[in-house]
Structures are given as C-alpha cells and as structure tokens.
C-alpha cells in the first residue's frame, strides 16, 4: 500500500487556512486579554482576608491547572448547556481557554508580586507616593518583568489550545478550516501538515516578538 502526496490542493487552500489562522489568533488574543483580567482578580482574591473569596479563587486555579483544557472547553459548551446556558462554539471556546489562562496566570501574577520586595513599597511611600501610586509606578513595572516570559508561554499555549475548538463545532479557525477541507478531500496528511506549519509559525512569531519586546522594555 502506498500513498501519493498531493500538495497542490493543500496549497490552493492556503488562503482559506490563513483566514482561519486569523480567527485562531483572534481567539488567543481575546482569551489572553480576558485571562489577564480575571487572573488579576484571582490573584487579589487569593490574598484577600475573606475566606469565601480565597476559596473561590483557589478552586478556579486548582481546576484550571489540574484538569485537561479539553474538559474545560467541553464544560463551557455542553456543561453550561445542560444548565440552560447555551453558548455558541466561539464564545464557548473563548470561555474555556480564558478559564484556563486565568488559572495559570493568577499563579504567575502571585509569584511576580512576591518577587518585588516590600522594601520597594516602603521606599516609594517614604517619598510621599500613595498606595496606588507606589503600586503602579514601582511594583507593577518590576512585576511585569517577572511575569513577562510566563505570559508569553501562556500566549503560545492559548494559540495551540484554540485547536480544541473543533470538538465544540468551531469550523472557521485554523483547525476547523483544516478539518472541513480534510473531510471533503481526505488529504489528511497534506492539510494537517500545512496547518501544523502555520501553528508553528504563529507560535514562533509570538516568542520572537516577545523576545524583541523584552529587549526593548527591560534594559536594566
């Protein structure tokens, strides 16, 4: 038995796949923005004096970090559906990845916060800065450096996790488009190899631009 490669149809489909890649990137970026927002809330809640808040934050973080991302996305789509909350594929995938991102990033932020010595705040306050000012001008920039690379990793993860959208019926992201092409032609290897190359390039693009940004931002 042998298989004859037909690359031409795959290359013809490249524009469609690139449009799919754009959707992939869109979901990843949105899930990161939302993830950062919730991660900050989780990090704050995790250090709160109220037990309910601490427990809620820790449950979120534990579930996000210790269960498969696939299940988290499933829960957003079918799980919420059985509770009467029906999300479309796109928002369900976005919710699932956001949940995952927020869990991981909350831990990253907590670590980053702890990496800035309290004497820095003391020095800032002694110069007459208010609490918020000291946090914004002194703590946040230093914390940002600590969390920058873990955030980059999470962004790459987010891009790769979007491929799980196919299980909740998403058909216009890179994996979704590829899968549609596949079922029409059964050129599985060619289409998915090409898709893999695009994922690889997306991931590389993120890490390389992060490195460039870090070089510009962190001169100290």
């Amino acid at each position, binding site marked *: 038995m042998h298989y004859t490669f037909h690359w031409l149809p795959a290359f013809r489909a490249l524009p469609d796949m690139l449009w799919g890649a754009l959707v992939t990137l869109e979901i990843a970026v949105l899930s990161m923005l939302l993830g950062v927002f919730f991660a900050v809330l989780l990090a704050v809640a995790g250090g709160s004096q109220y037990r309910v808040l601490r427990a809620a934050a820790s449950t979120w973080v534990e579930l996000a970090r210790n269960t498969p991302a696939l299940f988290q996305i499933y829960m957003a789509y079918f799980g919420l559906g059985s509770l009467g909350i029906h999300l479309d594929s796109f928002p369900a995938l976005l919710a699932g990845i956001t949940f995952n991102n927020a869990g991981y990033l909350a831990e990253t932020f907590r670590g980053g916060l702890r990496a800035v010595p309290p*004497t*820095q705040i*003391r*020095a*800032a*306050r*002694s*110069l*007459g*800065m*208010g609490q918020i*000012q000291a946090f914004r*001008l*002194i703590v946040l*920039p*230093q914390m940002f*450096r600590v969390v920058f690379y873990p955030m980059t990793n999470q962004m790459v993860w987010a891009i790769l996790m979007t491929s799980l959208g196919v299980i909740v019926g998403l058909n216009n992201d890179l994996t979704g488009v590829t899968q549609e092409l596949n079922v029409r032609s059964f050129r599985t290897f060619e289409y998915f190899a090409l898709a893999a190359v695009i994922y690889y390039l997306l991931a590389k693009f993120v890490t390389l631009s992060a490195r460039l940004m870090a070089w510009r931002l*962190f*001169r*100290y």
Partner: protein
Amino acid sequence: MSILIDDVHKSFGSLEVIKGVTMTVEKGEVVSVIGGSGSGKSTLLMCINGLEPINSGRILVDGTDVHARGTDLNKLRRKIGIVFQQWNAFPHLTVLENVMLAPRKVLGKSKAEAQAVAVEKLTHVGLAEKLNVYPSKLSGGQQQRMAIARALAMSPDYMLFDEVTSALDPQLVGEVLDTMRLLSKEGMTMIVVTHEIAFAREVSDRVAFFHKGRIHEIGPPSQVIGNPQQPETVAFLKSVL
C-alpha cells in the same frame, strides 16, 4: 520648626521596642542616635515619618501630629526624607529617573523642572556621570548616594538616615559619610541612626544613646561619646570603639 517626640511607645506584637522616648530635634540640628542592635533606633525613624504606627505618645513634625487620624501622611512625608540601610534603588529606572520620579508624580513638577532638580542633586552627591545608568551598574556606595539624592530632590526640611553605611563595604563608607557631612554643613536638619561613632562625634550637635528602647543619655558629643555619664553608655562605647 522642629520634630517633637513625646513619650512614644511602640510594640511589635508582645515585644515592646520603644519604651517611652522623648526628644526634640530643632531645625538645623544634627542629632545622631547610637546604640546596640534591636535598641529601637531604626523603628523610631519609621515612626517619625509614619511608616510604622505607634502605640502611645505622639510625634509632632512642625506641629503636625504624625499619627493623628486625619493627618495626610503622603503630604507630610514630602518634607521628611529618609534613606534606608538597604538603599532601595528602583531597579527598573535609571539613576536620573529614580531621582525625578517623586518630584514629578508627587509634587507634580514638569519633566524639565524635575530633571533640573535631579541633575542638581545627583551632581551634589557626585553622580553627575551616572545619570543614564541603571542602579544595577552602580556600587553600593553609589546607590546609597543616589538614594540620598532621591530624598533631597523632594526638598525636604528633615532628613532621616537609617544606618545608611551598615550594608556597605568598608571602602565605600567614606563616600557616603562625605555626602552626609556636606549636608550637615549646609544646615540640613538630620537624625542619623549610625554605628559610625567617630562620624557621629564629628557632625552631630547632639548624640542620643539608645538602650533597650529608651534614651539613656542625650547631649553634646563631647559628653555622650567623650565623657559618658551612664554605665550603659560606657559599656556600649567600650564594645564598639
């Protein structure tokens, strides 16, 4: 214009570190505070600018009660500069930015104004050549002088020094003391917590000897260091000199 400390008590949990301290520092005066580790000297400085709350007594800075409920500490701290043992440079900012930050963000000065002040103060402490360098590239002594310039850029009326040479290599101590010597000559009001007895003797108008949370002896250096009256002072000086 003075700092008035009136029967201040301060505890950390069940440990009372300041047990009723009373002293006054007049405008233009340099008062050194000496004493063993854990005698409450550094804590007193933190209480003066409100970084640490007190348990009883009061501290008045130019008549303002530091620990009163309605006191705007951020505003009060503008006129009290403090330099710490661990210099606490802001690592993400250049030397110039370190010094410019508070004048800009706290006093609301324009960038040009803040920069002019920062350059002046940094030149004053001998760091004119290091303006655009990050603190990690400076020696401990240079970082400490930068911290002094950073406090001075707020044009404070008082300067508090908390064992500013204790964490420095011996060969770097001199340059920091020189900077403080300069300030004292210019008439800056200073409270200097220090282990440098010779320095305290040279620059101070008065020296206070702290022991176990109390001032055991206070007076001109010729008395407290030159001719101590209390047995505790004698024992301490014998142990450090």
